[in-house]
């Protein structure tokens, strides 16, 4: 695990997008400076337009910052890489590949599939879809598809796991189950996990740190460490206090959207 220890640094990172129809520019993210380390579970929470997805995509290397610098262990991020696994809100499973081949996709792309077939089998076992190995994604339910997407991004054992509202499209019960599944994997591997969500409860339930963000312009307004032991109790007094605190912070910012 030592070799997989990572430190992700954002130094004064800003990202602006040109609007399509007018000449104006949207400031999606303004001067974020923060450090994240292996073993942390960071929740990014805030209303839409606050730049939380932008931040995640910057870390993924899918887009590049307008100003500032993102570094992993001192090395600047130059594009997407399999050591930063990402899970999207849509499962984005490749519909022409079976469950097994979807999970093996990353290994195959890197030419590492030979000799690692047991890794793929193992992942199928982790999510309990042994009976669906040769099924196509079109035959899976939403929850199953997201499970496959999760292990597909985990097959490389990435030291950084990026979760872009991965549970947003699931029903409440599947969602709570998957929260625990993701936590279990994270606790075992001790990666750096960064998750975008607009569910404050989910942010507190899963995160070791919650970055509260606000919109216009997108920015981080608070960095709150959650000092509760796992597994957490959604009904406990401390949990509720955290929730009130975070909602207040967003409320003071003049956006009542979350209440």
């Amino acid at each position, binding site marked *: 695990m030592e070799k997989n220890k990572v430190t992700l640094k954002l130094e004064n990172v800003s990202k602006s997008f040109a609007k399509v129809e007018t000449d104006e520019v949207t400031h999606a993210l303004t001067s974020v400076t923060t450090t994240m380390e292996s073993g942390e579970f960071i929740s990014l929470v805030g209303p839409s337009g606050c730049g939380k997805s932008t931040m995640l995509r910057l870390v993924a290397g899918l887009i590049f910052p307008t100003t500032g610098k993102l570094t992993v262990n001192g090395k600047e991020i130059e594009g997407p890489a399999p050591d930063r*696994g990402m899970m999207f809100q849509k499962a984005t499973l*490749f519909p*022409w590949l079976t469950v097994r081949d979807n999970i093996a996709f990353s290994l195959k792309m890197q030419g590492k599939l030979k000799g690692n077939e047991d890794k793929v089998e193992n992942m199928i076992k982790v999510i309990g879809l042994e009976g669906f190995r040769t099924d196509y994604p079109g035959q899976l339910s939403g929850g199953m598809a997201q499970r496959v997407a999760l292990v597909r991004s985990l097959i490389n054992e990435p030291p950084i796991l990026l979760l872009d509202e991965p549970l947003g499209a699931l029903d409440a019960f599947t969602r709570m189950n998957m929260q625990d599944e993701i936590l279990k994997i994270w606790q075992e591997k001790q990666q750096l996990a960064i998750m975008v969500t607009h569910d404050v409860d989910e942010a507190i339930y899963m995160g070791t740190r919650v970055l509260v963000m606000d919109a216009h312009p997108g920015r981080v307004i608070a960095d709150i460490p959650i000092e509760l032991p796992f597994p957490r109790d959604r009904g406990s007094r401390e949990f509720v206090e955290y929730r009130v605190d975070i909602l207040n912070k967003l409320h003071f910012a003049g956006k009542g959207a979350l209440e």
Partner: protein
Amino acid sequence: MSTNTPDAGQVQKLTRAQLKELEQKQLTPVQRFFELIIMILPLVCGIIAILEYILIPDNSRNANPGVYLAFLIILVIVYNIWGWYTAYKRVKGDKVPYEKLRYRAPLFSALFLLLAGYDYLTLKTGILTQPFVPCLNFVANAFWKDRAMILECTIHTLYLLFLGYFSGCALGLVTGITCGYSKRCRYWVDPIIKFLGPIPTSTWIPIMMVVASSLFGGAVFIIALGSWFATTVASMTGIANVDKDFFEAARTLGATNRQLVFQVAIPHAMPNIFSGLTQAMSSSCTAIMIAEMLGVKSGLGWYMNWSKSWASYDKMFAALFVICIIFTIVTKSLEAVKRYVLRWQNGAEK
């Protein structure tokens, strides 16, 4: 199964046929009797067709009565064997062959009646004038007597068709995929497609007859052009419409640019590509017939035209049936390949 939650694997093991049977209502004795009648009906109709041919006296001269009769008898025997085979399978517990035959049985019955009716209108009464609308025995005779030549023409047609079709489709895939992927390439190819697109392929044939040094080469070119056009347009739209999310997902999983094309864009565009290939096939079939009728000196199209000029209408009709059969086989084969490649599309879309 209702007492505890069914294990996913266990539910999977139930086949589609078994499920259907579980959910199906039991047939009443009357319905069963009716089903049996439907299965036997083709045999009855087949025998009617045979008797119609043997018993009713001919209106016009009928040489060598064997071929059509043999054809009818073979059809009846084939149906009989098929029927017994499904019955055997059904006893063994496999209902699928039976259901397939049961689905087709009314059509087969109608086919036999149609043959009998046509024979009655032509050979037996002359309501449809001989030899312009030749009776089936004449057509079958013509086919049997001229089989060597028809076979040669068939091979020639297939050779020309495949040569043009495959070269056109291969080129079309290359241009379509590059243009779908690269904007610069599309910039140059788009005007060509916009200009050539509205011109039906057969329009080129007169031009080819003037310009091309060999008519065979010209025909290949025309068929290839039509196929090229259809596959280029289809694969270009397919590639250009790949969901951006798939690319992003693939990139975070470590795919290189080359892999994005071959492992993501092309498989994603496969449904489009296949609709292009199907369209190309139908345009090729049209083009080849026109080419053979107008200029190329061999092949089934030429054979039809040539028979017509000798007033051998029976041969003309024989060739027509052969064309029907080979084009059906070709299209069905393409369809089968398509079903196999796109098997991920079947299955319950959520």
